[in-house]
């Protein structure tokens, strides 16, 4: 049986699944229920000077049948008195000593303010601190959150202040709303961060009400930019986690955040270097119960592949993330259509024809009188550039696959080829529609 226990920058956790700082970690009751459900850790919703929230705080993006494919919020940090939060944090830690309790912090950019909040938080017995340098809305206008996290010098400075007094591990939560996140990551590490967590939410306007012209989520007909999250942001987060995890100047544990909803998502983050993963939107959608399959699925996957511990898989995909100029130009693919599975929707044809490389031939079977089961589409292999688009649009799993086309040429990267080394294998020609008849 796979061992899901982790030690993340000195913080022990029974599994890598933590609740991210946010609405699900606002109270003792919620966090206790989450731990009862099986979550390994929780990052308490950001504490600091209590704020006043607006009514209507969340906006959602639905895609087809999927609700909340993307999600944003204009909610701020905790609106509860600091004393209440600290008392409940202490109670959680006392009642759940084996779980990871981390507290997200955000205060004014003053040394004394940070010293005080760190000391008072650590008095609760919490296992670690997460510095919220990420929220892109509301707090940033007050010089906090991403206003700090977007400037490497500020980031470094505040981490230094925190580390002057902190006893427990300090995690710095990074904002994705920057040109290159690795600069901020390096600054945090330079300031003494024990670990990083990323990504915080992405600056966004989630929509516009076309009756009232109110941006969404609307507060009396008006709105403000908010933080975007949910499954839609996962690819952005995966890239940023991998960029930080690969950076030779970072070298601290990374907690992955951004659109994680399933064990597969979690495994991908871990493969790209995340030591733990944090989940918020999926819990807001479905509740704490989702942790059951997060754990079960990850364990089964690890067992099936012979991975005993998370250390065995953490970062396993990182060596495969390379620069474009290091990709093999002589690795050729071609699409193959399993005609027995084809339902003749012709989505691949129109996608390739209008949106890609004109490498699918369409046979009008109705006109040919072949009946419905005759092939309607076929790959023009000599024109196919192996781009994957047809396989991506095909609604039948396993109908279109990408097959490698072997050649006699050794691999050659752009780096080599541009330097005059190596030769290119013969490649598919780009065909224009005009050169062949749609009737085949």
């Amino acid at each position, binding site marked *: 049986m796979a061992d899901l226990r982790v030690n993340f920058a000195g913080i022990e956790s029974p599994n890598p699944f933590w609740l991210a700082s946010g609405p699900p970690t606002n109270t003792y009751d919620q966090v206790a229920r989450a731990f009862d459900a099986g979550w390994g850790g929780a990052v308490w919703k950001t504490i600091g000077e209590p704020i006043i929230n607006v009514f209507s705080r969340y906006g959602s993006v639905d895609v*087809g*049948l999927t609700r909340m494919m993307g999600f944003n919020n204009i909610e701020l940090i905790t609106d509860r008195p600091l004393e209440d939060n600290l008392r409940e944090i202490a109670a959680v830690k006392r009642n759940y000593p084996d779980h990871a309790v981390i507290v997200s912090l955000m205060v004014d950019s003053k040394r004394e303010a940070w010293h005080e909040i760190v000391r008072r938080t650590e008095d609760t017995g919490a296992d670690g601190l997460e510095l919220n340098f990420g929220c892109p809305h509301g707090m940033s206008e007050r010089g906090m959150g991403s206003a700090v996290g977007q400037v490497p010098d500020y980031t470094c400075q505040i981490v230094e202040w925190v580390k002057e007094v902190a006893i427990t591990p300090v995690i710095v939560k990074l904002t994705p709303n920057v040109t290159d996140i690795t600069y901020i990551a390096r600054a945090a590490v330079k300031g003494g961060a024990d670990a990083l967590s990323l990504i915080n939410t992405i600056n966004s306007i989630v929509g516009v009400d076309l009756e009232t012209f109110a941006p969404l989520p609307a507060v009396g007909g008006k709105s403000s930019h908010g933080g975007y999250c949910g499954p839609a942001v996962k690819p952005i987060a995966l890239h940023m986690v991998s960029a930080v995890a690969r950076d030779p100047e970072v070298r601290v544990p990374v907690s992955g955040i951004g659109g994680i909803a399933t064990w597969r998502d979690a495994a991908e983050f871990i493969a790209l270097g995340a030591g733990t993963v944090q989940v918020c939107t999926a819990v807001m959608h479905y509740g704490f119960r989702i942790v059951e399959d997060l754990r079960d699925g990850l364990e089964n996957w690890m067992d099936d592949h012979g991975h005993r511990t998370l250390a065995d898989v953490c970062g396993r995909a990182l060596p495969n993330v390379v620069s474009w100029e290091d990709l093999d130009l002589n690795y050729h693919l071609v699409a193959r259509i399993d005609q027995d599975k084809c*339902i*003749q*929707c*012709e*989505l691949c044809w129109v996608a390739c024809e209008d949106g890609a490389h004109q490498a699918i031939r369409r046979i009008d079977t109705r006109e040919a009188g072949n009946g419905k089961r005759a092939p309607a589409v076929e790959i023009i292999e000599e024109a196919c550039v192996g781009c994957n688009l047809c396989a991506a649009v095909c*609604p*039948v799993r396993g109908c279109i696959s990408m097959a490698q086309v072997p050649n006699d040429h050794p691999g050659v990267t752009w780096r080599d080829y541009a330097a005059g080394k190596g030769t290119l294998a013969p490649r598919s020609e780009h065909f224009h529609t005009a050169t062949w008849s749609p009737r085949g």
Partner: protein
Amino acid sequence: MPTPDVTPTLSTEQLERNFADIAAPLTSDAALLEAAKCLFCYDAPCTHACPTHIDVPAFIKKIETGNLKGSARVILDANPMGHSCARACPVEVLCEGACVLNDRDEQPIKIALLQRHATDYALEHKLALFEPAELNGKKVAIVGAGPAGLSCAQDLRRWGYAVTVFEANDQPGGLNTYGIAEYKLRAETALAEVQMILDLGVTLRTGVSVGRDVSFDELERGFDAVFVGVGLGATRRLEIPGEDLPGVHEALAFIEHLKTHRYADTRVGRAVVVIGAGNTAIDAATQAKRLGAEHVTIVYRRAADDMPAYDYEYDLAKRDGCEFRFHTAPKRILGVDHVTGIECVRTEPGEPGADGRRRPVEVPESTHVIECDMVIKALGQVVRDDFARAASLTIEDGRMVSTKPTVFVGGDCANGGAEIVNAAAEGKRAAAAIHAYLQETGG
């Protein structure tokens, strides 16, 4: 019509329930979910399968984007009868039967219900989806305000023709108003759909029978072109003794009475025998059952597989508790001053006839009586040769044909009897042909 002798004993509430919409409309949420499932096929098979070639993926995606007005316009542009078709089309053999999801071993997209969702919106909001063009000085007469004639009228008026529709009945709509099973399409719904076409500025003259109140020649002289969509005529006769006894009814007359009166005013027998197994026979049988008949028996001289009725209709009749007696042929309707029963013989398939189908052959000594107090004949209708003669049209193979350049035919009279959607398609094709002809000849 002569009415049956037994008054329905069901309560008004029960009758309302029995004749309520057989398929509940989709809620907005359900429509969005269903629309999102559509794959948006390129050159979609559903569109090919529809005789009017409605761009099905296009109207479904418009539902998904919240563009119900645009969705209804796509539907009613291709098929002016798009709402009644959404309720009455045999979609399992048309669009839904062609849906590619069938090949993924899934249920097809609920195209009919989505089409109804979009057109419901247009009817409820009385949307003016189309603009009539400025009159071009040419006039077209349309004989018969059924699906074919009205579909023809919509396009012609949109293209600038002055259109006058002559209808012998009191109400327009043809069989949409008078002949579709009540639980599929009510007269008021059919009339609301017709009104959208009339609102374009089409002139309707009801209660005017061409051939009786106005001669066909007058139409030919007074208009630049004439479209004939008069439907079919009388139901075929059984040619057996007792056929004219009180208690013997024609299916279409029975249905029309039901649709033009309060339910309680259409009387039905306790034991009803329906002769024939087409879709009209099923409509008559199920509605007799829903009116309160205790026993409904459908008598058909061939096998279940030979029935002209669609599988959907067969299933519906079985669910309604109708009994099917296959390989059974009526020989004599019994009774003195009213039907008391029907004498039948059993049959078995014999040698193939001219149509290639094996002809039923009577089994010796198989005579038996089915007791009943009502007989409904649903044997199909014959083409109106009286009208054909009056209009100098020819009849070929039971279908009306025009050889005159300014006279066009379409719908049941021209196709021998088919679906609403076929009539709509033929009406539109005729409109296009009239337009082309009048442009070519300069009218």
